């Protein structure tokens, strides 16, 4: 089974599965922490409408985990805040 990396952990997926689906299948349901109150969030609408499942994928923040298809070797991380902290103020 192919895998991608999420927060350093190898997550298996089936061809065509989204990042969110593979993570939920592996028992990971917290995908980001909010920028104002640092609250955990996971997949909510599942169809790309609500933007709650935002993660960083291969260095790009704010990707909707429910829409981005998992790929072998992809490196994703939980998004904290805006996901753009490395840009500074």
């Amino acid at each position, binding site marked *: 089974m192919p895998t991608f990396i999420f927060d350093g952990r190898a997550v298996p997926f089936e061809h065509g599965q989204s990042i969110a689906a593979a993570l939920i299948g592996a028992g990971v349901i917290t995908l980001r922490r909010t920028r104002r109150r640092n609250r955990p*969030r996971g997949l909510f*609408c599942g169809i790309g409408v609500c*933007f709650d499942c935002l993660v960083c994928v291969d260095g790009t923040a704010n990707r909707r985990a429910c829409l981005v298809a998992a790929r072998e070797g992809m490196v994703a991380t939980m998004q904290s805040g805006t996901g753009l902290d490395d840009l500074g103020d």
Partner: protein
Amino acid sequence: MILATDVCVVGAGPAGLAAAVSAGQAGVTVALVDSAATVGGQYWRHPPSRPWNAVIDRDVHHDVGEFARLSNQAAALAREGALTYLPGQFVWTVSETPEGCRVRAVAEEPIREETVVDARLAILATGAMDRPLPFPGWDLPGVLTVGGLQSLLKGHGVLAGQRILLAGTGPLLLSTAALVLARGGTVAGVIESARPLRWVRHLRALAGVPARVVEGAGYMAALTRHRVTVQTSAMVIAACGGDRVSRVTSARIAQDGRVAPGSQHTHEVSLLAVSYGFTPRLELHAAAGCALARDAKGNVSVEVDDDQFTSCPGVLSAGEPTGIGGASLALVEGQIAGTAAARRLGRSGGQTGELVALKRRRRTLRAFAVAMASVYTIPSVWPEFLTDDTTICRCEEVTYAEIKRALELGASDVRTVKLLSRAGMGWCQGRICGYPVSCLIPGAPGGTADVASLRIPIAAPLPLSVLASAEQPTTPSSHLPRDPPAPRRG
């Protein structure tokens, strides 16, 4: 890429697929633009193993024969070069042009490559999304929409939790509960806010749709077999847990519309799926300038005439955007729209008798939809469940206290609440909190002023480079080849 075509259909669910096939068979060229990797929409969502006529599982899907027929016909049209299928394309705007209209879309991967379709007519079949209501704890991981739970199951083969509670209103709760059971999950219960006994007032509407009655009975039989309790006249009032939902509190709503004293009940769950009906996806209709309407219950839809034309001469619409009505109605409206579009372009698609029969069927199905909407209503008591720190706008993390403050300052419409509190100003542009916020305004919902808040000029995330090139594709579409390029196959 710029593509010129006679008709551009946006959305490849039941309505869009039917519209594309009807228009294509009537002899006009069609571009079918869809955000998913496969045809079928949310209703026939399936893993993207095969883009056309993929095998879909009979245990989780309905009208499978209809899906196979439509997707085979669409595939045949694509082989002939009459239909260009553009999957994975998120339409970010639709605008009128002197020749018709322009549909602009971006791909999510590779990141944001733009596709422009210049068409003489557009048929917007954008479908619907779940309509959630806020309650304390609805932002916890493990609380998701019923549609989200379905999409994980149907599209990705993933059961999102082992012990699942479903709550909200509408038959989707029952069909999804049956789906969870079929896939080996445990349903902790179904909590329906309406009183389905009210169906006895609508027997005539039910008589027009015997297949739906049989379908509903099938779900109830499956739930009974698994000893799943379906509680009616009840609502979820709170969810709690540390980093994920683990406990949900529900309460019964008495005849007077208030919470029945002492009726609170706690459920241990690993997942809570909620849905209070659907909201049509109208971003593109609003962008094109189509007339929209909001009824007394706060439901919004696009106005269409007898041939599914909107108030914009170049734009038709079919399916959920014209009023929530389900897949059967969407299929019929799609056929009417596709045929009417071809006729407008001078092709005499379909027999006149067929069209008359379709319109008669549409009337029956709309009567059923109206009855459905009057049975599955949302008790108006829900704002009483909110606490000051309940999140209302999930993107901007605006609390109920902050919404109340905006109202105290004099806000009397969604737009002013947004300007004062930031509710609806985030990533989702108010798609999720717009309806609940409109209900929290005294005197609302209803009224046409709120419809303006549905305007989302950019309906999909874009890089600035696409916006910067917005004036670039100025070649008049009459200079473009009329024949679309060979269909892209998945």
